[in-house]
């Protein structure tokens, strides 16, 4: 076998591997970035912490990535969660309210996470308990959740929901030894989730329920319980994102916090190769998907294009990534090229 054959076999194998296309998209966007701004990868140390575009992308991608990981679990059960933005709004309102009330901040952290899980339990109850279709079931909390957040703000007058908290802001915007704390936090949560999904039978159960709930039930899996748990896990990760976002802005803003985060999270899962038809969870690739989205957003910002173009460029790049991912589209493109070259 010649070296050339070896290489083409390797390329062929890489092409079939599902991880290659999102990574390729990420690399392509980064290459464009370097062309636009040659010192894109420059990292400096400013005031005792790392500073640069790459760090900025990782830093800003954390909330979306956390929500996307939860979304990946829910999508694995063939579900969807539209209420993540509302969950974040409610968590933020609870944090601001309890800090005004003077609770210890560690208690508030657990309270916020608990309230988040309560939101997930509500969604899980509607989907698994009442059997309502997920997109409609989670629409209920999506519609009313930001209102609940506003209502919580009104409990203490709602005039000044801003706050200071060394603990929460330390987790969100602080850094230890050059590296932002939220990256440690996100990595820790990712490892915990990965262990729970891949080192216990939970992942297998979720994928079985998403693949075929009736068959999973017959095989002895409590499909309702698994579905319920998936929504709670998603809401817990979303609540962590809510803590980070709320501490970042030092205030609770239920109307506009995390607007459209559900769409970005779903997009991240799909760019990472997840199927909305359920039955598959790709945790690592979901993080790559979130990084693709954040890199794209940052790139549009540093490119200096007018902000009106943001959405259009985002849509076109997303379509390009999906085009690369689609085996059917690549095949027809390949045929077209072959026909031209003949």
């Amino acid at each position: 076998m010649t070296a050339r054959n070896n290489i083409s076999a390797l390329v062929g194998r890489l092409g079939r591997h599902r991880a290659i296309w999102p990574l390729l998209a990420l690399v392509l966007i980064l290459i464009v970035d370097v062309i636009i701004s040659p010192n894109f990868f420059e990292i400096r140390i400013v005031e005792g912490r790392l500073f640069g575009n790459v760090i900025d992308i990782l830093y800003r991608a954390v909330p979306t990535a956390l929500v996307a990981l939860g979304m990946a679990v829910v999508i694995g059960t063939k579900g969807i969660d539209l209420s993540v933005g509302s969950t974040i709004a409610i968590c933020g309102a609870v944090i601001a309210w309890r800090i005004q009330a003077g609770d210890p901040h560690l208690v508030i952290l657990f309270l916020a996470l608990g309230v988040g899980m309560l939101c997930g339990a509500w969604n899980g109850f509607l989907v698994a308990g009442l059997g309502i279709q997920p997109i409609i079931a989670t629409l209920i909390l999506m519609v009313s959740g930001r209102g609940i957040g506003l209502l919580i703000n009104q409990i203490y007058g709602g005039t000044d929901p801003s706050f200071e908290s060394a603990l929460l802001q330390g987790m969100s915007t602080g850094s230890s030894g050059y590296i932002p704390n939220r990256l440690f936090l996100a990595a820790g949560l990712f490892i915990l989730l990965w262990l729970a999904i891949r080192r216990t039978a939970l992942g297998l159960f979720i994928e079985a329920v998403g693949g075929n709930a009736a068959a999973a039930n017959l095989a002895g899996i409590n499909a309702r319980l698994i579905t319920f748990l998936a929504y709670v896990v998603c809401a817990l990760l979303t609540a962590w994102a809510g803590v980070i976002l709320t501490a970042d802005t030092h205030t609770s803003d239920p109307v506009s916090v995390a607007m459209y985060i559900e769409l970005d999270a779903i997009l991240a899962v799909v760019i990472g190769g997840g199927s909305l038809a359920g039955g598959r969870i790709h945790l690592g690739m979901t993080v790559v998907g979130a990084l693709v989205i954040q890199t794209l957003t940052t790139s549009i910002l540093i490119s200096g294009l007018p902000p009106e173009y943001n959405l259009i460029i985002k849509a076109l790049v997303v379509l390009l990534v999906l085009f690369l991912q689609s085996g059917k589209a690549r095949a027809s493109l390949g045929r077209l090229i072959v026909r031209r070259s003949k």
Partner: protein
Amino acid sequence: MNRKYLPLIATILVFLALFVIGGSMYRNFLSTLVLGNILADNSFIIIAAIGATFVILSGGIDLSIGSMIGFVGVCMAVLDSMGWHPLATAAVMICFGVLFGALQGYVIDAWDIQPFIVTLAGLFLLRGACFMVTLDSVPIRHDFVNAYASTSLPLPGRGVLRSSALVMLAALALAIFIAHFTRFGTNVYAVGGDQESARLMGVNIRRTKVGIYALAGFYSALAGVVYALYTSSGYPLAGSTLELSAIAAVVLGGTLLTGGVGMVAGTLFGGMILGLISTLIIFNGSLNSAWIMISSGILLFAFIVLHRFLVSSFDLRGSS
């Protein structure tokens, strides 16, 4: 009785029950005036939802509806300020809607990408296009808008059917004809029931899917035209998250998101239930913005549960 009518009957019962409850709570609620207003105020949601019904019947979903309404609105307003007649702009925009929908349908089938994601890209694309056309709210000042607004058909009592409602009812009649009396309509149900079986029976999947999304594009562009004429302005953020209202109207109307099951007529009542929810909140009058959001959620929840309860209790009676 045919079981396929159960969800539709349940939807109509829920609608009537709510209407009567509203009537017992507020004076002047039970009138053709309120009914006519609900039809006119929600005509654009119902028109868009009719298009979404075909998409959902085929097992897909269309998220680009709200952005399409916004885009059609700003184009109508900007072209109006350039001296175009609103009807001419409407014709152009509806053609654009059909083409855009057909393109989405083609991408979904030819690239084999999930409809949720393709139409999500459509949502971003059209909303971005809105911002490129204009960043301001632009009024539509043509005389035709006044003529359109003052046209109406009297109903018994004090109520009237305004032109928006008339357009909506005509669009509904067309949709019922397409869904139940044409081969294309049968193909939509076949594709939604089981795409592989439909293919094996000789249904042209590519043509059907392109047709479905083109039809959805037609209806959402028409909804955009009705919305622009109704508000007599174009605003680049108009119609945000309206796609979710449309999907909710379709589902409340008894159509399953899994495809293959449901009726276009149900969507009318689904949309009117959403309209009743906001009318009830307006009649109450004392709610602040927080409670408006929360009570919409609670009422949505109540309807979904009531609807499920009605359908399952009918089911039990039918099988025993």
